[in-house]
């Protein structure tokens, strides 16, 4: 073999710690190495040209670059060697930046470690054989999981490009949390008014199949050819007959807390989720329905002129074939009961920001009136930012949108309740979007009192007459450096955003990782925020991290573009890391057959030996390690190659 070794300085990122000259010299002494060079920026064009020229000049058949992590530039150098006519898989990378120079204190140790890793890479490369990427055909449909604003947007973009979309939503209606908001900052557009046209559009689009009240049970396969099993939960109402007229609800005697209104009022056991629901169909809640619980009533059947009630409805399973998946499963608001110092659940007039949205909404539990529990208007209201955010006791991250939401609430209070005193308790004010800072100024000019200090607790124990019957916030105004008591009538807790309860299960089902805070892990935090490490699975919206509506919409469009690029090409290229069986060594013992999660191994009925189904193999090597005769090996990660790497390290 003639291997070229290139040691990158990476500016001073590597050369500042590792003695790159010594390392290059060492590399040139290794077996099979024809040339070894060092250069300041290997990934730059002149750096890549060094490699290309050497390949031609020395007739190299292998290249090792010792630089950053392969996650960063392996594709860059693979493309470079390909341009010089070398098979890209003859390229091997040694990470001496992320794994050496950036993490090692002592320069001598770092230099030594770099030598070991380069030796390992050279030994491995010497045993590499050329490999070809595999092309697999791509199914022309996209699955979008989650019917909130991000899911709706992604579905529309794909559908409008002419491709089929399955939009799966676990609730009886699409719309997500945006449907629950009253006004959106900073324009104060009515949330429902800008959302519902999109909801209707997506349901009407001929390319979109809306699977409402459905959940994904499991998926198999891989990018280009996912098989997704979706279960439609029973509404106990025939959607094809129901007109959404709502008469059943008016007659129904059963009641339960209204989820859409966050339990602030009750809805009937048979109900349409909200007036603008899409699809506009009724659904029966088994747990409160008198028929299901006590086998009585059935008033809905009596009054339904469309004969749409069907108590015998069963869950329906379907398997869909899709080429790409977009996860847009949203968030859940922080449970304010986890901040007991604020008395949510103890004090009647402490509510959350989302509950306040429902309150100000004209179709909400108070018909848009801002009132205390006893029906009176509040004379003073405190809004606390960062509840469940920026807090070592629950979530350390910033939830991004609550400052703007709190300012919006301050504005709405001033608008709807004449003469009300409003306090906003904040730590740092984040108003970073377009028009956000201007909105902040406006709210300040309206007379909202901005207090820089996180309240320690709320109490209803008065110290004097002025505090009687009030909720008293005890907070340090850090600008004035004084701890003060603020008696108010109502407190709004601006709760942060958390990953939804089913994020864990969804991540598992779709082979997604999650970051420490529970949100889905993107492929790269800077350069690939809507892709995931799993090929063909993309994420958009709040499920990736707290964000506002314009960002969710932008990400949704991005994820749709990613999905589209797979569809449009018509094929997907898989890594060539395939399991291979040496038929002279295989004994047909069958140990491997159950080891493949992709069912890529089967027994040949003629010979009794095992066979690899190449289109299904994902190259994990689980079967290779289990084969007791080592008849199985993995292209690109052959046992001899791993042994060679070990040898290089232990030399």
């Amino acid at each position, binding site marked *: 073999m003639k291997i070229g070794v290139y040691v990158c300085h990476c500016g001073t990122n590597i050369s500042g710690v590792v003695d790159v000259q010594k390392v290059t010299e060492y590399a040139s002494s290794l077996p099979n190495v024809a040339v070894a060079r060092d250069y300041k920026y290997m990934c730059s064009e002149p750096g890549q040209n060094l490699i290309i020229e050497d390949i031609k000049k020395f007739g190299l058949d292998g290249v090792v670059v010792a630089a950053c992590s392969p996650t960063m530039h392996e594709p860059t150098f693979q493309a470079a060697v390909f341009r010089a006519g070398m098979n890209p898989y003859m390229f091997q990378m040694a990470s001496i930046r992320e794994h050496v120079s950036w993490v090692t204190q002592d320069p001598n140790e770092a230099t030594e470690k770099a030598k070991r890793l380069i030796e390992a890479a050279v030994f491995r490369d010497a045993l590499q054989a050329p490999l070809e990427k595999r092309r697999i055909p791509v199914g022309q449909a996209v699955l979008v999981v989650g019917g909130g604003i991000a899911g709706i947007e992604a579905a529309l973009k794909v559908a409008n490009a002419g491709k089929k979309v399955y939009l799966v939503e676990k609730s009886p209606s699409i719309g997500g949390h945006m449907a629950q908001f009253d006004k959106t900052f900073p324009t104060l557009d009515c949330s429902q008014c800008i959302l519902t046209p999109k909801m209707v559009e997506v349901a009407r689009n001929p390319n979109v199949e809306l699977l409402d009240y459905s959940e994904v049970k499991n998926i198999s396969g891989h990018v280009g050819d996912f098989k997704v099993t979706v279960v439609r939960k029973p509404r106990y109402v025939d959607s094809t007959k129901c007109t959404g007229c709502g008469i059943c609800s008016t007659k129904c005697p059963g009641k339960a807390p209204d989820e859409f209104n966050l339990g602030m009022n009750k809805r009937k056991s048979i109900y349409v989720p909200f007036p603008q629901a899409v699809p506009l169909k009724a659904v029966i809640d088994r747990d409160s329905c008198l028929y299901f619980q006590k086998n009585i009533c059935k008033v809905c059947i009596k009054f339904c002129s469309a004969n749409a009630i069907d108590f015998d409805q069963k869950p329906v399973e379907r398997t869909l074939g899709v080429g790409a998946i977009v996860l847009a499963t949203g968030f859940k608001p922080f449970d304010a009961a986890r901040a007991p110092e604020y008395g949510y659940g103890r004090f009647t007039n402490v509510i959350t920001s989302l509950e306040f949205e429902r309150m100000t909404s004209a179709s909400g539990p108070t018909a848009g009136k801002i009132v205390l529990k006893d029906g009176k208007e509040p004379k003073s209201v405190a809004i606390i930012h960062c509840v469940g955010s920026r807090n070592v006791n629950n979530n350390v991250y910033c939830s991004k949108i609550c400052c703007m939401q709190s300012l919006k609430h301050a504005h709405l209070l001033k608008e709807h309740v004449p003469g009300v005193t409003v306090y906003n308790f904040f730590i740092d004010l984040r108003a970073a979007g377009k028009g956000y800072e201007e909105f902040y100024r406006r709210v300040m000019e309206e007379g909202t009192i901005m207090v820089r200090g996180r309240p320690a607790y709320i109490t209803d124990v008065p110290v004097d007459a002025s505090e009687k019957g009030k909720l008293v916030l005890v907070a340090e105004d850090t600008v004035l450096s004084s701890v003060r008591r603020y008696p108010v009538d109502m407190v709004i807790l601006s709760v942060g955003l958390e990953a939804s309860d089913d994020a864990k299960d969804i991540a598992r089902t779709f082979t997604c990782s999650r970051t420490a805070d529970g949100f889905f892990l993107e492929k790269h935090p800077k350069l690939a925020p809507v892709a995931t490490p799993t090929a063909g699975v993309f994420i958009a919206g709040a499920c990736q991290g707290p964000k506002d509506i314009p960002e969710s919409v932008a990400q949704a469009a991005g994820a749709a573009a990613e999905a589209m690029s797979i569809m449009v090409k018509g094929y997907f290229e898989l890594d060539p890391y395939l399991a291979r069986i040496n038929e002279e*060594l295989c004994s047909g*013992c*069958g*140990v491997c057959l*159950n080891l493949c999660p992709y069912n890529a191994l089967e027994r040949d009925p003629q010979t009794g030996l095992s066979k690899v189904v190449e289109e299904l193999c994902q190259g994990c090597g*689980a079967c290779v390690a289990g*084969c007791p*005769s*080592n008849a199985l090996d993995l292209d690109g990660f052959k046992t001899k190659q791993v042994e060679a790497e070990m040898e290089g390290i232990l030399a």
Partner: protein
Amino acid sequence: MKPEPAAKPKVAIVLGATCSGCDYSLLDLGPTLLDVTDAVDIVYWPTGIDSKLEDLEAVPDGGVDLILFDGAVVNEDNLEMARLCRKKAKILAAFGSCGAYGGIPGLINTGSPKKILLEVYQKLPTFTEKSESPAFEGENALPKMLGQAYALDQVVPVDVYLPGCPPPLKLVASLFTDVLSGKAIPKGTYYASNRAVCYECKRVKENKDITTLHRYHEIQPDPKRCLLEQGMICLGPATRGGCDAVCCTQNQPCRGCLGPLPNAEDGGSEMMSALASIIAVSDENKDSDYSAIFNNLNDTVGSFYTFTLAKSTLGRRKVD
């Protein structure tokens, strides 16, 4: 003048550290044994003929066409014999798993030979004050133990391997036929299949997915189905065939005596990997804990390296 009869090939069968079962197994040839003994000139076979060591020593170096060395090398006597055989043999064959891999004597590599000697000759429960222990020093001393057990090729170069405990007779016959016919045998040939026992085993292979392990006596296995699939630790998948899976056919799970496969030389770890891979493989999830299945499997060396410890990757217990 009568033509000179062609010289018969010279053969010797020598004992190292062995139970001599391989030796005995030659008797299984039955009447054919006499044909064999007629066809060759047995120079030295302490068990089979009246021969003395001097007879072997008298042969010129390289003059014995085939020496079968039956046993491992565990004490100085064995070592001396091994070296003598190498000198005298044209083809030196490691006869049996002891010679090929260290065999069951190889298991002493988990401990100290000195301790074992003391254990066996001085500390067994049946010893009383009246018991006489043999001498460890002096003129009538037992042969000195080496530091561990060795396979034959760990002490001298070996030409041919006949693994098995004992080696399947038809493979022994193959070797004899090849030697008698003067066929050139490549150095390092193993007279055994390159495929695992499973290839020859007639049991039906349905589904490798085990949830319980059974010892030999615990169940009456289904005579038609794969023993490993029934939860018995059968080393067949990681063991060379050539034996027609005779043990499995008799309801006895394979113990791995023909040793590891050519591309998977540490047979013990290959089998451990295969076995662990198929434990409850259809019920893998983060809440299922099947590690309890291994609770009673505490002698992994004895279970997976019964015959092959000395030649395995680690070879012996950590040297202190």
